[in-house]
């Protein structure tokens, strides 16, 4: 019977790389059934069940303790779990899925290089247009916290769940806060990153849940994984 649930992204490169990483540590994660079926198997350690989830769902599953371990980006953990340090522990930075959450503005704003400029432009924009400068993002908590700490208030966040780089061209926002790895999509959309606009440097990590049921069997399974991955078992204080 499996007792420890390991949540991994249900598709895409993040899933492949996760499987590769575990394979390098003699733990084989594999999909079972058809390509489209979200079920999997674990070999190399006993008592571990693989749970395929959307990367965005993994933070709340960890928080609720429905999975013991989960692979997802730090950006999603920090955004969705404001008290993340109390709810999960970062066991392993996986070295892939690198993404920087940044603030970017149109390249044509030659007068804007940093947050201080953005703040001044926010005031100018509001006076000229009668509404607050719009920043499109899906990372509402992180962006708001970042700008509050820097004393920027005259803006509004508009929700954008995808293709955020296109909003400026589509006139639905003036600036964006989004993740980028190479910056290529930003450049292709004629946007530039503010020099001090790095909100978070994120990569894929394995997180452990404090709320999960850490039975003796679950601890044994975790110990077996940790023996192969070199994780510090005391971090989970189960």
């Amino acid at each position, binding site marked *: 019977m499996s007792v420890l649930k390991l949540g991994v992204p249900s598709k895409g490169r993040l899933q492949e790389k996760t499987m590769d990483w575990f394979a390098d540590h003699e733990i084989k994660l594999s999909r079972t059934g058809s390509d489209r079926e979200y079920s999997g198997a674990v070999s190399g350690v006993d008592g571990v069940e693989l749970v395929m989830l959307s990367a965005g769902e993994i933070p709340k599953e960890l928080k609720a303790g429905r999975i013991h371990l989960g692979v997802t980006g730090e950006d999603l953990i920090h955004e969705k779990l*404001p008290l993340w340090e109390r709810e999960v522990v970062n066991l392993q930075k996986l070295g892939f899925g690198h993404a920087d959450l940044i603030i970017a503005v149109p390249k*044509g704003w*030659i007068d804007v*290089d940093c947050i201080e400029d953005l703040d001044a432009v926010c005031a*100018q924009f509001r006076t000229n*247009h009668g509404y607050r400068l719009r920043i499109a993002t899906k990372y509402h908590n992180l962006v*708001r916290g970042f*700008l509050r700490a820097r*004393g920027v208030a005259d803006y509004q*966040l508009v929700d954008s769940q995808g293709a955020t780089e296109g909003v400026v061209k589509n006139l639905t926002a003036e600036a964006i806060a989004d993740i980028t790895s190479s910056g290529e999509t930003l450049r292709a959309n004629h946007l530039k990153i503010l020099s001090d606009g790095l909100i978070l440097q994120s990569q894929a990590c394995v997180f452990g849940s404090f709320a999960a049921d850490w039975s003796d069997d679950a601890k044994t399974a975790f110990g077996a994984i940790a023996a192969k991955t070199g994780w510090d078992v005391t971090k989970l204080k189960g």
Partner: protein
Amino acid sequence: MTPVAIKTLAGQLSNAFMNAGAVPVEAPALQPAEVLLDLYGEDIRGRAYVTDDPVNGEQMLRPDFTVPVVQMHMNGGAEPARYTYNGPVWRKQEPTIGRATEYLQVGYELFDRNDSSLSDAEVFSLFYNILRPYGLRTMTGDIGLLSAAIDGLSTTDRRKERLKRQIWRPMRFRQLLDWYSGKADNLPTRVALLDQVSGSDAEAVLNDAQPFLGVRSEAEVLARVASLQEDAATAPIPAKELAVVEELLALNGTAADALKTLRGVQDRLEGFSTAVDCLEMRLTALAASGIDIKSLPFEANFGLTSMEYYDGFVFGFFDGENVIASGGRYDALTQVLGQGRSIPAVGGVIRPDVLAAVGGGAS
């Protein structure tokens, strides 16, 4: 303290305000988000609970009563007017602090076109006398002094506007002040941009950055470049004027001493003495209502981080670091909400939940 005991205390406070002549008023718990967003900016979303209605649009659980009470008054209240209210407000809190997210506020608001110093004194002494038995720490301040000092600096209107906009954000205010007085160097990237546009012209630089996207127009970008150029050519704020602002920000003693200090430096800033006159009139009025201004604490930068709509006299009562009551003058808010009309206003709120926890003086 039980919720019933807190409610009982709230009722007693409410009675005290009614005895002082206030008319009890109510306000809907759901407020249109637009008004509050316009007033506070995006930050309010981090502080107030937002909900959505398919017909009425975005709504917020009221984070305070002041805004709805001002709106109600501006829609045809008699003058002068004294209002009191007693009900819950809802505020999101920093997740790590674990403060209450729903609590009662009992407040008193005074709208009066007559002598502002008398209104300030009326409201403060009312709170002071109600709270006296609890042995709280008192603090007062005056945001009007800082804006008057900024107005009195010999520098451009643009710099004054930017400074005044940042009064409530001390970190940015300090940074601007350092730049404008020549204490800090201009940003390297800004210097680089200015070099670039002085070599050719701004339009040529802008042409290199094509295609140009978005609602903010090329004209707006060029206008700001011009303002940066103008700013770079502006003389620094003279040291002796800066010293007055520094002295003001550092004021931390009694109200009577603050007045004495400010009288000594007022003439170094144009027009500043008028604001100091206001302080003196208020202190005279406070003394006449029985407040000992020789021991009344005064900090010129009090209220600059938390009380965004206050623009004159401000006050607070504390138990340790806990705010039990706070208030102040908010003339500009009535102008913003009054659609062209305005009325001088001053008021404050008490939190019966934290007051009840102090105990001691309840009668």
